[in-house]
């Protein structure tokens, strides 16, 4: 066995790290305060290849692998959880299903602009009454000649506000539950698409979380993604891969908070010594680091399994669960180490604390991850 990153992955890691240090870290606080990732940063991340890392060069992707993608999201999220989820939702949830289930024509048409970040992608599955239970989808479609006509609404759509390309799920017969669902590639600038609101959130405030209404949104038949009625399978397969992205985001947030807490514990003096000399702080650091490393191993393993075309469903569920819980734990403990300063916005720990929580909820709640894991154990 070998747990080292390859030389190529190390080169990538240090390149991403340099970029993040200079271009993202200095503005992370502003991104949170202004609820906005500057367009210039999105453009730069596109030019860096962060928005199409593991897709082939023929579709303007970087041609790297899933592990590279995990590293990119991790490194970016160390500085900014909002930018991390932009990359993750775009790459895994929009480019991902188009690449996996699209026809060659669809890939050629949609992927280049997505992979280079010219257009930002999103995944439109969640509805007010269909979250963990996607079978409850109430957005409906009917066929009219060469078009599908879609009516309904979606909520909590990460990256929705960019009005880019979306992979949208709709049903043609609610009685069929998940078997009635199909997936469509939609241009969200089309007539019939309305943004109801971009949510105001506790964390990842720089990232759009959008509610949409669809009123007779007309989609050409060639935009059907995969077979009609197979939308649920596409959604589940997509979320499988997406979990590696969100796990990497959570890991990055945890690492960002840990690095700061470790440094602070060595600088901050109380009772005549750095607080890192106190066992109470030492034990916290040990617990935090152990959870970070455990999550990292599981994420890299899940990515490795995917890269090697092996089944990774269980590992992706486990890595998402472990890393998100590490993120909420580590950011909480980091704030405790920072004491009162951690509660002050200038020290950035409070932002990481707020950013961490969502990772236990989205891309399948951790309860759903436990269902996935236990089902596989017991099947």
């Amino acid at each position, binding site marked *: 066995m070998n747990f080292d990153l390859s030389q190529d992955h190390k*080169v990538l890691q240090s390149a991403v790290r340099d970029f993040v240090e200079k271009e993202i870290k200095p503005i992370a606080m502003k991104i949170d305060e202004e609820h906005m990732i500057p367009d210039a940063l999105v453009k730069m991340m596109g*030019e860096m290849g*962060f928005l199409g890392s593991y897709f082939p060069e023929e579709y303007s992707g970087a041609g790297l692998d899933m592990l590279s993608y995990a590293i990119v999201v991790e490194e970016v999220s160390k500085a900014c959880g909002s930018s991390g989820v932009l990359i993750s939702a775009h790459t895994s949830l929009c480019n991902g299903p188009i690449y996996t289930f699209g026809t060659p024509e669809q890939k050629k048409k949609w992927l280049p602009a997505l992979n280079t970040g010219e257009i930002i992608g999103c995944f439109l599955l969640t509805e007010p009454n269909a979250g963990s239970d996607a079978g409850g989808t109430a957005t409906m479609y009917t066929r009219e000649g060469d078009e599908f006509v879609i009516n309904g609404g979606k909520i909590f759509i990460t990256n929705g506000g960019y009005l880019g390309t979306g992979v949208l799920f709709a049903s043609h017969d609610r009685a069929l539950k998940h078997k009635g669902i199909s997936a469509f590639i939609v241009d969200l600038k089309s007539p019939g698409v309305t943004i109801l609101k971009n949510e105001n959130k506790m964390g990842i405030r720089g990232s759009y979380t959008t509610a949409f209404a669809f009123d007779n949104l007309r989609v050409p038949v060639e935009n059907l993604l995969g077979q009609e009625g197979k939308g649920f399978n596409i959604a589940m397969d997509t979320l499988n891969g997406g979990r590696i992205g969100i796990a990497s985001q959570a890991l990055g947030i945890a690492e960002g908070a840990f690095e700061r807490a470790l440094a602070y514990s060595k600088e901050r003096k109380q009772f005549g010594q750095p607080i890192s000399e106190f066992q109470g702080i030492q034990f916290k650091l040990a617990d935090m680091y152990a959870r970070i490393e455990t999550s990292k191993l599981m994420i890299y393993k899940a990515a490795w399994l995917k890269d090697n075309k092996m089944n990774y469903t269980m590992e992706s569920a486990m890595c998402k669960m472990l890393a998100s819980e590490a993120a909420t734990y580590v950011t909480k403990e980091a704030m405790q180490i920072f004491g009162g300063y951690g509660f002050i916005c200038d020290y950035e720990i409070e932002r990481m604390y707020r950013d961490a929580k969502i990772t236990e909820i989205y891309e399948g709640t951790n309860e759903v991850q436990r269902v996935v894991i236990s089902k596989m154990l017991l099947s």
Partner: protein
Amino acid sequence: MKLLVCIKQVPDLESRFKPDAAGTWYNEADLAFRMNEYDEYAVEQAVQLREKLGEGTELTVLSIGPDRVVEAIKKSLAMGCDNAAHIQDPAASGKDPWQIASIIAAYAKDKGFDIVFTGMQSQDRGSAQVGVTVAELLGFACTTTIVGFDYDNGTITAKRELEGGIKGIVKLKTPALVTCQLGLNIPRYPTLPNIMKAKKKEITVIPVAELLATEALAATTSFHPPAKKGGGIVLEGDVGELVDKVIAILKDKTAVLR
């Protein structure tokens, strides 16, 4: 045209350095390595020239050291170098600047390079001797610590940084070697697609024994942290006396009043 850029991989300067077992250099265990900062300016300048000259120009990056230096080589390839020479030498850190320069010169001598770029010095050893010695050994024109670079039709126009912020302009005919200083350019980030493309670029591995024919002229005999500073000095007396004492100390120990 043929261009060569020489790079070194050095430890992250924020690392904690401990002496190695022999006490003559730092212990490499647990250190994170990266490309020497000045060499990044050299690579960037070489790549800019490579892009300006276009087809028919070949840019080679060279590094001496153990296998880990391939990381720095790959970064240079991702920044735009065409191919690489890795002079494989697990003991490179023990060699003096004369030997390192001799190895580079031995590699470069029959290859017809027109311009060689190096950093002005390494961040770890900091001798600033390798570049100029390579130029001397190859019989190349040479200028150092450049902060501006232009090339046209066999002539380099380099802007140099002199003491006290004064600038100088130097013109030199190729073949030539320049050593690069902070302020010359802003090195580009290697993008993911270019990291991927770099995987296909050729890295020639040459065992150092094939090129090394010189003995060291200087040896580092000790590597150690500075002696721990004593506690602060408490001055006593009336104000006039205190001022005199402070001025005397500042003159003696610092450069602020010189």
